[in-house]
């Protein structure tokens, strides 16, 4: 995973709460077996509306998406994160995120910046006043700013560290290989194991 210290670029605002991952990337796109190529499907249904934010001239090349509360709710599909990244987004700012979406984002290197409602409203106002304003998401400093407005955002220490270092999570976990092996020796013997069921019909 690539390290992310700072995201700088134009922002797109989708001022709705409960933006679910079915909207971010519809199910028809989930048949792909790659991690790439999802950008064309990003918000596919909403993009049929010419007035939709992603259809505006400034959206191409934008790096920051600003959304409403409970962003990324619904399906666990990580394809939603890949679609946002494939389109060019490197950070999402919202008042709250759904848990699975947030975990997927950090795992894939997309910054989820959780600012309070007031902070998000201030950012939206700043971007509305100057759509070309450069929005800066500072992962190390936990702030997001635009056109003179700045607001802090919350992100977990470990998530922040992973983003800053670009860490391979599996590599970090495998350092605990001995602890995993020791734990496995303590598991109750009745726990199920695949392929060895009591009935012959399998």
């Amino acid at each position: 995973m690539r390290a992310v210290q700072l995201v700088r670029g134009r922002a797109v605002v989708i001022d709705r709460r409960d933006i679910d991952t079915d909207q971010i990337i519809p199910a028809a796109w989930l048949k792909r077996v790659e991690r790439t190529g999802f950008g064309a499907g990003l918000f596919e249904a909403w993009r049929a509306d010419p007035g939709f934010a992603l259809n505006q001239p400034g959206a191409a090349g934008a790096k920051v998406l600003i959304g409403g509360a409970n962003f990324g709710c619904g399906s666990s599909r990580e394809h939603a994160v890949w679609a946002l990244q494939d389109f060019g987004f490197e950070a999402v700012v919202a008042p709250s995120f759904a848990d699975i979406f947030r975990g997927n984002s950090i795992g894939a290197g997309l910054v989820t910046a959780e600012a309070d409602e007031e902070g998000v409203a201030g950012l939206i106002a700043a971007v509305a006043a100057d759509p070309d304003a450069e929005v800066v998401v500072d992962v190390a400093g936990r702030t997001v700013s635009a056109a003179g407005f700045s607001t802090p955002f919350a992100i977990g220490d470990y998530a922040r560290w992973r983003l800053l270092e670009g860490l391979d999570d599996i590599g970090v976990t495998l350092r605990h290989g001995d602890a995993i092996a020791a734990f496995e020796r303590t598991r109750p013997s009745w726990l199920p194991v695949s392929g060895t069921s009591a009935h012959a019909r399998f």
Partner: protein
Amino acid sequence: MTDSTSGGRLFDKVWQRHLVASPDGEPPLLYIDLHLVHEVTSPQAFEGLDLAGRTVRRPDLTVATMDHDVPTLNPLGPITDPLAAEQMARLSKNCETHGITLYPLGSAEQGVVHVIGPQLGLTQPGMTVVCGDSHTSTHGAFGALAFGIGTTEVEHVLATQTLRQSKPQAMAVTVDGELPAGVTAKDLVLGIIAEIGTGGGTGSVIEYRGEAVRGLDMEGRMTVCNMSIEAGARAGMIAPDEVTFAFLEGRPHSPQGAAWERALDDWRSLVTDPGAAFDREVRIDAASLRPVVTWGTNPAQSVSIDGVVPDPASFGTPAQQQAAQRALEYMGLAPGTAVRDIAIDTVFIGSCTNGRLADLRAAAGVLKGRKVSPGVRAIVVPGSARVKADAEAEGLDDVFRAAGFEWRSAGCSMCLGMNGDILAPRERSASTSNRNFEGRQGPGGRTHLVSPAMAAATAVTGRFAVPGDLERPRGGSPDARARANTEGGR
């Protein structure tokens, strides 16, 4: 508030026994007892594993099936969708390469991943269960800690059999009293979601408690836990009891003999101790619950069958008003319309929420001797091949077919519309699935979530209805009903 060291809650007990390590500055490492895998969220995980030269640590704790984009018509014929065929081929190859048990299309145990785990006895109390699917919360009905994960985490579990998880908060939802007649587990969970909201459970594991929850059978408990994610919760759990043990006894992967007795002793300890405090508690009076239908585009937007489509102006905040307005526009509904006056085009019975044998029995019980309203498309998609076989052994397929339903093969089907089972734009469904998001069942489709019994009654009338509506003339008062009965007897 309860601090993180407090034991005594079901969730803490299960969490604690799976802690592998709690390194400084890192989220705790949790051991995973069962990893369920399907064709859609796994190919990129296996690819990542292979590229890094890693192996699957515990193929024996990993079970795969095909469900999300399998055809439900002629499943043993050629797969006509080349992309779906490629995903299934990838899963077969990946399982073969890594020695993972796979129940492929055509297998007697194939089915929706959250239906087959419990059915095989793979899901047991006190376990940790993960799957690259948000409805993994279903397995919490057994007192397991079960949550959905993304593909990067799927790869992490494949490689390490562990997951990094910040400890969620513990939330209690207690439903006091008995459910009124005609109120199902689906109505119960939709009522809970309406109460706490789409993000009300975020960051939390919900333990469902109280008389109404204890009174549910395992299928009903699975329906409730299944939709925990629709309230934003990491997981839902219900403490195991005699109902749980009776369901598990004799299942293919359940412990046998002396091991069964040892397991039972252990499972009986998996309850929240009296007096244990939760980070948040919500109480609901079961008597206040009604059979409900969703009217909007998220599962919190529901209303009683006796109600009307709400007026956006009746909502508290401008944001809620705007959301309601937009939802009504998408759904093509006018405020004030009686729910029973809304006509539907399609009825879908199935999914990990309501595709189990008990769900099919409930629907068939309503449909026996009745016909689907002319012009309504009605399909039943059993949750698994075994549910289908068991239903056929009871003759349920004959009831559905005689009523005018299509009797399909197992899969996720129209719940998410990946396999071609979709709604046309503006087509309106009564669906026993879990999400009424815009376009969920096909671009432009309009989804209303209901219970299996209500789906069946709605199929008969062509408009939203509960089974009781079929017993009397529509809109008839009890007096009118009595007169009708008398007249009918002459």
